[in-house]
């Protein structure tokens, strides 16, 4: 039988160390909503989302109350809109209508974000996919809860450099369209290489075409719990360090697995995956950077940071896979600059550069995430950063992503404030040398030699 010590340990994690389930995300296929008319397509989308996800928020709150574990976000991911709208959308404005429908469905169901205003263009773009991409700035400016993502490369296909060039411009246009709130529209736009089909975390969630009609995915969290556990083993060997992280990740993931199964049963929607990611928030004591510092760095960004992050990421996975048979999504450590108090402090003090962050993305689960850069950064430079990050993902057969915010009207040393979960970020410098001539080339970068496994 469970004893007092175990109960106290669990409740300590919840009450003092910010243990929570970060999100229950319902993935919904919209492939059966395709229609020759934009209006009919939008009506079907709204009806399907509100029918399947009508009880999502209430069910999440009920489970949260019964277990005593906060479930911070309830969200929806849908089939990439470029597939759903291909038959009816003839202009970017048609796609904006779909975005507004998604926004309305999100508000009706009470979820705080809906992901899937997306296009998968890893090898090339269809005309419809290009229309969706060109609709992104207006869609993100005129909706509140819609998140967008574009997959521009993969290990199997190489990198679509035409899409990379276009996305540099789209990021700038989105920044300009949302300049009134520090270009925060860019915080809802992720550019992927090797995007997973079952990611529950925003802004990059979408319901991939490999998925069924609907699925429940759960994203766990808990950097504060790992940090607190490591405080107990300060100065001890790497073996003890790794064991402690694994044990803690196991416990955290078991909570996620329980919540996922409960939500799946109560909503009558199949369970998909648990995403093991350590997702920080701007709250004190909920920081991945603080874990790296607990491992022995005076500040994140110091030499040793990449090694410490590699170790952390690997041990989180090793502990987590034991706790759930279906692990998926991104699963690792997130390093979003604006959403992590320790990262914000290091970037503000000049101890964390984009180049060091890029190195860290080689070993973490995502990429250059929530980084504010000067508003006058050229589109070609943003494309260059996207290409670099995609190359890391392509060659290492891992997911990488870019979520950069060129803050219009602000420069290095100033702060961008996006509010709420998105946090705030110091604007950090970008290398001023140009990559314009490279980005101007057309076509794609071929898949790497080690992708030919057949």
């Amino acid at each position: 039988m469970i004893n007092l010590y175990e109960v106290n340990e669990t409740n300590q994690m919840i009450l003092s160390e910010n243990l929570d389930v970060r999100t229950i995300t319902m993935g919904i296929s919209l492939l059966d909503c395709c229609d020759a008319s934009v209006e009919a397509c939008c009506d079907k989308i709204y009806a399907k989302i509100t029918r399947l996800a009508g009880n999502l928020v209430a069910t999440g709150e009920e489970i949260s109350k019964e277990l005593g574990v906060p479930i911070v976000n309830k969200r929806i991911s849908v089939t990439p809109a470029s597939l759903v709208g291909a038959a009816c959308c003839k202009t970017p404005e048609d796609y904006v209508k779909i975005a507004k429908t998604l926004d309305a469905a999100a508000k009706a169901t009470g979820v705080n974000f809906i992901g899937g205003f997306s296009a998968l263009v890893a090898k090339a773009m269809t005309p419809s996919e290009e229309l969706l991409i060109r609709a992104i700035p207006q869609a993100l400016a005129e909706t509140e809860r819609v998140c967008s993502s574009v997959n521009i490369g993969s290990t199997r296909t190489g990198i679509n450099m035409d899409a990379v060039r276009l996305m540099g411009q789209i990021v700038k246009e989105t920044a300009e369209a949302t300049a009134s709130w520090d270009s925060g529209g860019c915080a809802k736009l992720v550019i992927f290489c090797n995007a997973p089909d079952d990611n529950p975390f925003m802004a990059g969630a979408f319901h991939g075409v490999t998925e069924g009609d609907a699925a429940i995915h759960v994203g766990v969290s808990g950097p504060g719990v790992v940090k607190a556990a490591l405080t107990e083993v300060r100065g001890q060997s790497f073996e003890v360090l790794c064991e402690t992280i694994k044990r803690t990740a196991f416990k955290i993931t078991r909570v996620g697995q329980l919540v996922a199964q409960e939500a799946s049963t109560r909503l009558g929607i199949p369970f998909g995956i648990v995403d093991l990611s350590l997702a920080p928030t701007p709250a004190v004591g909920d920081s991945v950077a603080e874990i790296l510092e607990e491992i022995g760095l005076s500040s994140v960004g110091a030499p040793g940071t990449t090694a410490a992050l590699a170790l952390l990421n690997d041990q989180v996975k090793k502990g987590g896979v034991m706790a759930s048979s279906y692990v998926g999504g991104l699963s690792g450590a997130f390093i979003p600059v604006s959403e992590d108090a320790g990262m914000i402090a290091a970037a503000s003090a000049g101890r964390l550069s984009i180049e060091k962050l890029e190195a860290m993305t080689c070993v973490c689960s995502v990429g250059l995430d929530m980084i504010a850069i000067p508003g006058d950064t050229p589109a070609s430079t943003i494309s260059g950063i996207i290409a670099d990050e995609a190359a890391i993902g392509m060659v290492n057969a891992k997911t990488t992503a870019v979520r950069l915010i060129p803050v219009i009207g602000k420069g290095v040393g100033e702060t961008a404030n996006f509010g709420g979960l998105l946090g705030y970020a110091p604007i950090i410098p970008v290398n001023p040398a140009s990559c314009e001539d490279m980005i101007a080339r057309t076509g794609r970068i071929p898949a790497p030699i080690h992708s030919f496994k057949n």
Partner: protein
Amino acid sequence: MSKAIITVVGRDTVGIIARVCTYLAGEKINIEDISQTIVAGYFNMMMVVDISACEKPLGDVITDLTAVGEELGVVIHCQSEDLFTRMHRI
């Protein structure tokens, strides 16, 4: 059989266990195990209870117990046992 774990933490005072047990008896909730410690005047109790005969949903029992805790000046949590068994048992 569905079980819940009730924890009570707060400054020690007369009648904490009596008040909680009276509520549980009224709701047909059977107590299977109690462990309790007092450290530096602070009361720390854990109960394992069987709620399968209780007619109220667990969410309502949690709300009621939270209110009982507020009356007594202690913090009462009631959580499904699943949370703890999943986390601490393979």
